[in-house]
């Protein structure tokens, strides 16, 4: 048996511009993409192929960098270089712009919904991370502004189980935030990458985090209760600390732009500046404190330009989407196949 990454469909999604990001809806039926053409496209399956169901064109004045679905699937948030984050409400097969979140001083790089559905995080080139709260009247208010990074913040991601937020930055660090008293605080700064950290994600249980970087590695971090007085190479407050337990190096030829942890199978996918999409699997026999990941499948010429994003379908195991600077989206099937 061998694992294979096979191409299902190649889509020219954002013609003549970059496709920056793809994100599956929580029920797995829709794929949202966004790009340099300032548009958001929603893709759905019709028979065996994926077709464009909706185009949201006039929400932003500049590139749309990331999109994120709310946990209930009824809202879509889009982060744009025009310094705003737009919240869209799903109405039948269409989306209408509900509100626009302003406040960041320049390009918004990421938006992410907390699993509770009440909180939203955004981050920007202005070095800050904002947490927003939405109330029953669909009104959004700023909860806090966090200034723990010293450079452009590229990505934010919420812990799947608790109200914990992680951010990745051009300053090579990862910050972990938690609510303390009546404000949010940076609980830990994870140092280890030697260049920009582009993305990060948690595993299904929230026990581990994967980060990827311009230093061409992927790091796996694990949460440990802190030992008294012990100083690890990440600074920490509170009673938990994150340590790097595994580094995947030598696999990626260029910057690793995105990493995605499949919530169903535990497989790890990466999108790389060497145009490839790769899938890693964890060796089940290895110790949990020293996990081992092996490269099990790759599409070395997944795109003919940088791969910017990978996303696993949350309901259909093995269904993976990637997108590229050439404006394309590719749908992949990752599965085990009989060796001939």
């Amino acid at each position: 048996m061998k694992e294979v990454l096979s191409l299902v469909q190649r889509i020219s999604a954002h013609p003549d511009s970059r496709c920056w990001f793809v994100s599956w809806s929580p029920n797995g039926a829709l794929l949202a993409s966004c790009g340099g053409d300032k548009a958001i496209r929603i893709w759905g399956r019709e028979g065996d192929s994926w077709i464009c169901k909706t185009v949201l064109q006039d929400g932003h004045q500049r590139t749309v960098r990331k999109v994120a679905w709310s946990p209930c699937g009824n809202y879509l948030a889009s982060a744009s270089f025009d310094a705003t984050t737009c919240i869209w409400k799903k109405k039948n097969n269409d989306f209408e712009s509900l509100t626009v979140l302003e406040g960041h001083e320049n390009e918004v790089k990421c938006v992410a919904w907390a699993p509770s559905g009440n909180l939203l995080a955004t981050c920007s080139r202005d070095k800050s991370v904002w947490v927003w709260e939405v109330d029953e009247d669909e009104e959004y208010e700023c909860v806090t502004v966090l200034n723990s990074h010293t450079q452009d913040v590229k990505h934010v991601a919420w812990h799947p189980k608790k109200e914990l937020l992680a951010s990745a930055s051009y300053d090579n660090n990862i910050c972990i935030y938690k609510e303390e008293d009546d404000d949010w605080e940076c609980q830990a700064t994870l140092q280890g990458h030697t260049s920009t950290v582009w993305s990060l994600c948690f595993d299904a249980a929230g026990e581990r985090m994967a980060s990827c970087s311009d230093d061409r590695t992927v790091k796996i971090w694990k949460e440990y209760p802190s030992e008294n007085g012990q100083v690890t190479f990440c600074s920490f407050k509170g009673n938990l600390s994150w340590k790097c337990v595994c580094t995947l190096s030598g696999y990626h030829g260029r910057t690793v732009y995105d990493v995605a942890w499949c919530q169903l199978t535990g497989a790890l996918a990466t999108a790389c500046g060497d145009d490839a999409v790769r899938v890693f699997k964890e060796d089940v026999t290895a110790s949990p404190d020293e996990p081992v990941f092996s490269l099990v499948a790759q599409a070395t010429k997944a795109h003919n330009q940088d791969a910017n994003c990978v996303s696993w379908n949350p309901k259909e195991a093995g269904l993976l989407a990637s997108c590229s600077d050439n404006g394309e989206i590719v749908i992949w099937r990752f599965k085990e196949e009989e060796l001939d």
Partner: protein
Amino acid sequence: MASHFSGVLQLTDLDDFITPSQECVKPVKVEKKQGKSVAKIQIEDDGSYVQVNQDGGKQKLERAKITLNDCLACSGCITSAESVLIAQQSHEELLKVLRNNKTKETEQKIVVVSVSPQSRASLAAHYNLSSSEAGRKLTSFLKGLGVHHVFDTSFSRTFSLLESQREFVERFSRKEQDSKAVPMLTSACPGTYAHKTQQIITTRSPQQMMGSLVKSYFAEQQGLGPQQIYHVAVMPCFDKKLEASRSDFYLSKAETREVDCVITSGEVQKMLEEQNVSLSDVEPAALDTMFSSVCGDEFLSHAGSGSGGYLHHVFTYAAKQLFGEEVKELTYRTLRNKDFQEVRLEKDGAVLLCFASTYGFRNIQNLVQKLKRGKSPYHFVEVMACPSGCLNGGGQVRPSSSQNQKELLQQVEELYKAERPLLPENDTRVAELYESWLRTLGAERAKELLHTQFHAVEKMTNGLTIKW
């Protein structure tokens, strides 16, 4: 170097090279001549820039200068020069002036230091004194260095409170005719008007009120020109340095600023340490009562918040003046977090007055967004850039090793509140100055001394520095 300025006023956008940021609000005024011709720019041997027109004619180009003033409104390019900006106003400068007084015969200056009650409380906490004791000992220390007069900005704050009260009632009264009259936002905090604020009060902050008092009234009284006085303010934050350097507070005829230098509570502590002096060991001195609110040896303060009490006083005054209601005690309702509080005056189910205090960037954000959408229910908002207000300013004395910031703040708040409050209307010295001095100057001159102006600055958008 980490930014000392309040979170709201952070100079951001550190880059590998300094370019005019898209955000730079320095309006570059260039005299443009009509014409389609493209001009070349050439650098001469002496480093100056000239524009070479198509006909060969050369025109020397003005150097674009960016000063401390400009950065007040900007989140642009000058992060690296922060250290320069701060150095221009430091305790070193004060010591230089004092040294100069001792050694040179010419250019002697009368040195006046105005201390804020928040700074006094901060130093009191650090040296385990009461706020008044700290004030008396500080007076003694400063005079020992050669300072001539030490005043207290609670005194000038009395003017700010009286003017704010009157300004609010005047604007509230015409809100039916003028939609922009309310809501009114305080402007005593320089960290907040960089923030696209709308209807801010024109009343001067206590610091700049003292500037008027010292460089106009006091100067005249002493027979001095304003430039012969070196006026220092001791403040709880760094943003106040930028306020002092605003061009609106520059006396162009005398070529001097109303407040020459602002130093923080932390910088005063540094001065003490450099002299190997512990404030607690200093013999207390008598207080200069000309511009200080004192009763015997004790300083007097104002009711309300540690950031000046604007909400408290304006609310109480407005309730009385507009609705005939005597408010004995204000009931504060905490909203989203403890830095966002609301006070209402209700009668027979109707809300007559709705006031709020919003401290800290996140709350100011929400306030500004609500104001933009016309969804704000407030008539008046006390806006401060620092979470927990001025007592927690960025320039206050840092906690010692045995204390954390929260404990220290609590101690500072207690020391501050221990000073007895005086109702602004009951301050006889202030009333005297209104009568004997301000009234004689006429309404326009009085307005100049008690109020200021705010200018909307156009943002320049250009295609430079688009980054991913």
